[in-house]
């Protein structure tokens, strides 16, 4: 059995206004695997992701790489779990690509040369090195998404968490983007309702509905279960 890197036991979370978002999530993520979290809009995918680096803390036990999520452990956890948010405009908030990709490493307290190394390496990995001095505003959506990944890679995380990574991409850039995801050798957790993306990038799937995990299994097994997918709104019911 592979090492467990994320362990979630009976996770409940309600928004401040009382709306229940997650009710009783149990989930394990293994080292090196690529887990797809699928579910319809509002099923709780994004909320679940926010628990993976302690942005949100529900009532339960979440263990990341063996650590409990406590204030003391937060910097350690955030350095190793890189979350890439859906809208790259929110992920890229600094005036230049360099400053943005260097934001994480600088917060880790690295020296100038080390930060430059990390930025160059991360941008190289997503093929965006020539854009170092550009302002994020001048990039295309596809380029922004790539830089967004680099902003997290520069911190050398062990787990990559992506929220709807393929949204707003045209077919060509989507193709390239999937290629990039396949190339990255890390534990990946991808929340999406893009089933094609899941087929290409994930080995295992967890299906989420109304804050509960209703099915977990191998990608092929879940995606062949037409009834299950229809029931939870992942594919349109055939007439």
């Amino acid at each position, binding site marked *: 059995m592979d090492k467990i890197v994320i362990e979630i036991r009976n996770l409940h979370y309600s928004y401040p206004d009382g709306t229940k978002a997650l009710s009783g999530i149990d989930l394990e993520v293994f080292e090196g695997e690529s887990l797809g979290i699928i579910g319809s809009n509002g099923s709780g995918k994004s909320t679940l992701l*926010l628990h993976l*680096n302690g*942005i949100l803390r529900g009532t339960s036990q979440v263990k990341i790489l063996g650590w409990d999520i406590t204030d003391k452990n937060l*910097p350690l956890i*955030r*350095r190793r779990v*890189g*979350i890439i*948010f859906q*809208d790259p*405009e*929110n*992920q*890229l*908030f*600094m*005036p*230049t690509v360099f*400053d943005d990709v*260097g*934001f*994480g490493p*600088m*917060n*880790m307290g690295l020296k*100038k040369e080390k*930060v*430059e190394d990390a930025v160059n390496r991360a941008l190289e990995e997503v093929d965006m090195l020539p854009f170092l001095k550009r*302002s*994020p*505003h001048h990039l295309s959506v596809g380029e922004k998404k790539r830089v967004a990944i680099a*902003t*997290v890679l520069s*911190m050398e995380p062990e787990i990559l968490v992506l929220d709807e990574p393929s949204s707003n991409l045209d077919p060509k850039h989507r193709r390239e983007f999937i290629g990039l995801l396949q190339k990255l050798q890390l534990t990946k957790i991808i929340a999406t309702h893009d089933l094609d993306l899941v087929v290409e990038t994930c080995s295992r799937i967890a299906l989420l509905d109304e804050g509960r995990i209703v099915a977990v299994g191998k990608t092929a097994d879940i995606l062949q279960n037409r009834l299950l997918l229809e029931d939870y709104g992942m594919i349109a019911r055939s007439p």
Partner: protein
Amino acid sequence: MEHGFLDQYSNVGSFMNRLDPRIKVVSLLAFIIFVVSTNPAAFQAFALYGLILAVLTVLSRIPIGYILKRMLVAAPFILMTALFIPFMQGKTVVHAFALGPVTLTVTREGLLIFWNVLAKASLSLLCAILMTATTGFPELLKALEKLRCPQVIIMVLSFMYRYIFLVQDEFMKMRQAKDSRSVGGPQWLHLKALAGMAGMLFIRSYERAESVYLAMCSRGFGGRIQTFHHFQVTIKDAAFLLTIFVSLIGIRFLSAIHG
């Protein structure tokens, strides 16, 4: 969508582009302080200040049209404040207008102050435009940070630079959506929709700010944004600074002799 950028001439490879941003900021401040503190009647001094800026403009390779357009943006503010100054009380009446029962008198003292405000404002503005147009905004921020400008201000300016065009885009899209559905109807209804859009824009910006903050926290933000700079003062920079200061002091000295 296309936007006019603040710093579109920051990378044309001119002499002004290559200067250390810190040197530019210091020179700018010195220039403005000297201009503002000049005796209003020292006309030659103002001409010489103008000459310095003209030389800098040539060195910056910024089209005159661009500079004039920028100046025009600020012109209403200057004129609004300066418009009533010529009618101030004074000893020497130059001209009097009779407007029914009211007589407006233009005085010599008033005119002098009017000229003073106009000349100083325009020169300072021109100087500021030259400096900001030749410096990339991120560089300018780093220069300000190195010169001990408070970090909160730097952060606010930095986020403004990053997100202002996005807010503009959002507003444009909302207006297009509104225009697509507005067919006829009374004028006040359009105004009402516009007010709603302004509110919506605020809420969206507020929500975006929250998302951005989450993204910052996820990458280990601890309350301070750190950045690196690659500034290095060269002999050229030092020479520029020296020239500016010598010229400014020289002009002050000359006008003191003649005045």
